[in-house]
């Protein structure tokens, strides 16, 4: 169930969007995908030289963010670390996962290497479990054509339940259609029915038992199903983020930093 980013002002998790300053931007876009899919090429194609490169708070993984404008709206683009999955506990995967979970981007662009659909779909399916507001960006279409790989992107659209846009980031082919699609998703003019991973019956029933408890503990959480799966898996980092103390600390740190920088910010509305 998609939730507008502004409906959860009361929930501590959404207050600061992980330190990404979106005050001057209208929309926040996350760029996710496997390594070597041309994510950075797309990032550079969209933001040009207007980008800021630093590190993720407290991590050694570098973080690039930048802004761009489309049809009079300003977009902020955050490049997530390239990963193959969101299930293991490497630093990169944790960063990507936490951002998708807690920064609540308006749209996630999932960048895919058109020449390696199957490998890239593993991550895509996992992202769709976390957030439905996604657009699949089928990059490296030129390489796919060269290699004689034909991708039926309309069929892929119906399989995944999200828009699929073929592009060539290197040459800029398909970029304006991509942004058109992204803005339509934000405005709610494209309906999203993301495919969920079919679960074994015992796992499905366990998830169903956890869902009501999750709804009570975190009423405004947009992706309880995924959290339920991770909790069942005993994912220590997810339960740590969920537990009051750690979550409070991690987010307070970012919050305090923003306060120092003189931004207005509401933090005591639990």
């Amino acid at each position, binding site marked *: 169930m998609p939730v507008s980013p502004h409906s959860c002002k009361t929930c501590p998790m959404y207050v600061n969007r992980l330190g990404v300053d979106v005050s001057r931007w209208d929309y926040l876009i996350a760029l996710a995908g*496997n*390594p*070597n899919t041309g994510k950075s090429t797309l990032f550079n194609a969209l933001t040009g030289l207007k980008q800021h490169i630093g590190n993720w708070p407290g991590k*050694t993984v570098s973080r690039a963010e930048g802004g761009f404008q489309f049809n009079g709206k300003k977009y902020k683009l955050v490049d997530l670390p390239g990963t*193959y*999955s969101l*299930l293991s506990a*490497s*630093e990169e995967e944790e960063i990507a996962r936490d951002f998708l979970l807690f920064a609540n981007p308006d749209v996630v662009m999932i960048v895919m290497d058109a*020449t390696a*659909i*199957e*490998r890239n*779909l*593993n991550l*895509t*399916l*996992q992202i769709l479990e976390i957030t439905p507001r996604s657009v699949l960006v089928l990059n490296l279409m030129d*390489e796919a054509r*060269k*290699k*004689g*790989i*034909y*991708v*039926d*992107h309309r*069929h*892929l659209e119906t*399989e*995944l339940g999200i828009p699929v846009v073929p592009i060539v980031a290197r040459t800029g082919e398909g970029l304006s259609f991509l942004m058109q699609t992204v803005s339509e998703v934000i405005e709610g003019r494209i309906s999203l029915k993301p*495919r969920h*991973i*079919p*679960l*074994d019956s*015992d*796992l499905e029933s*366990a998830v169903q*038992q*956890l869902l009501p*408890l*999750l709804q*009570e*503990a975190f009423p405004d959480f947009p992706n309880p199903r995924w959290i*339920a*799966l991770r*909790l*069942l*898996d*005993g994912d220590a980092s997810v*339960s740590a983020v*969920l*537990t*009051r103390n750690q979550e409070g600390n991690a987010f307070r740190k970012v919050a305090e930093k923003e306060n120092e920088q003189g931004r207005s910010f509401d933090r*005591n509305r*639990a």
Partner: protein
Amino acid sequence: MNRGEVLTEIERKQQILLQKADALRRSLHIDFRDRLVETIYSEAHRIAEAVTRVKPNPATDLDQRIDRIVTHPILGLPLMLLGLALAFWITIVGANYPSEMIARLLFAVENYGSKFFDWMGMPWWVTGFLWNGVYRGLAWVVSVMLPPMAIFFPLFTILEDLGYLPRVAFNLDWLFKKVGAHGKQALTMTMGFGCNAAGVIATRIIESPRERLIAILTNNFVPCNGRYPTLIMLGTIFVAGAFPPAFASFAAAGAVMGSVLIGILFTFLSSYLLSRTVLKGQASAFTLELPPYRTPNIKRILYTSFIDRTIFVLWRAMVMAAPSGAVIWILANIHIGNESLSNIITRWLNPLGYAIGLDGVILLAYILAIPANEIVVPTIVMGYLKAGMMMELESLSELRHLLVEQAGWTLLTAICLMLFSVLHNPCSTTVLTIYKETGSKKWAIIGALFPLGFAFLTTFLVASIWRLLLRG
């Protein structure tokens, strides 16, 4: 309702949630996580099959055919070593002439410089210290290091850009796993061939702290760029000399290759020892993608290999070599009684040197070369010539004459020096990098002494067995 009550209410609900999750997890089948991952993979497979059509294509087929050969279980490793040997050979052959030219140019400058100082009426020790000490140290480093780096680094970067390095890691992964280390150590080890400090920094890609420490502590065993000159000189004088000129360069490349193999062997050996003793644990698994081969980008290769690597390493070496050159000059020119300071130290180090198949001069050179390994050879030559400064010898046959006839080097000396060169302690920059990366003085000290111990032990054993066999 006040805020405190809301918090405890939510906390209580979260507690219930986590407890319920724990209870449910125990009720689930033990391998449900594997099954979930399997489901994701089979979904991905099904969808990919449904939406893609592949026309048989020569390019993709070529990629796969190449991969089948270079990652072949039997052929993969020899091919890799062959490639490395080829890179060494190209470097050795190609670096010869530019090296000589640069040396001639730089030493001519020194000649005029010191003459100019004399003409200005500078005291002899100012001229000596600046031109024969500091400047000559710098000139040696530039002429000996720049040409091989300018050839080896672009070759290395081309392989990197092609996408070959992940295949190297793929080929070596099982070996590293066998000794209890991380497969990505293959990559950091490869980086160490360029520069051990860079290799130590590259270990950041290894997530597990235990395996990262192993990779850091053993990185020194692959000879870095600064140690090639020593290896190349030994290969050229003692190995290539025994072959007809047509094969000399191949023999020299083979000797360098042999030292590299010994270094790799010790990497595995020491990783094994570490993971069985102080750094116990299981090797962790990781996903390794074999990216498609891409045509190397010439501009990027030139930039990376020259600006990022060559200039960076050269600058560091020069910064380190200048003070070393000064120290060498001072040691040779301060006399106590009738003997220069360097002579006294050499005599004092001789017994220890003899025990490990070397001599006092070589050990002194290694002590002075702690900041930068590349000045080992010039310092050794200086010690033998007692000329009071580092020397540039006009030809290798003169050098051979000096080492064999005058200093009494034997094949044992050459072998022990090669072993010592590959195994001995890392340079001060690397030790400093280890300290920065681990944040621990203890590991930095171990990182320096662990290889040194290996070097002494190995050369001592080789020298003792050698002498025993010759006597018996």
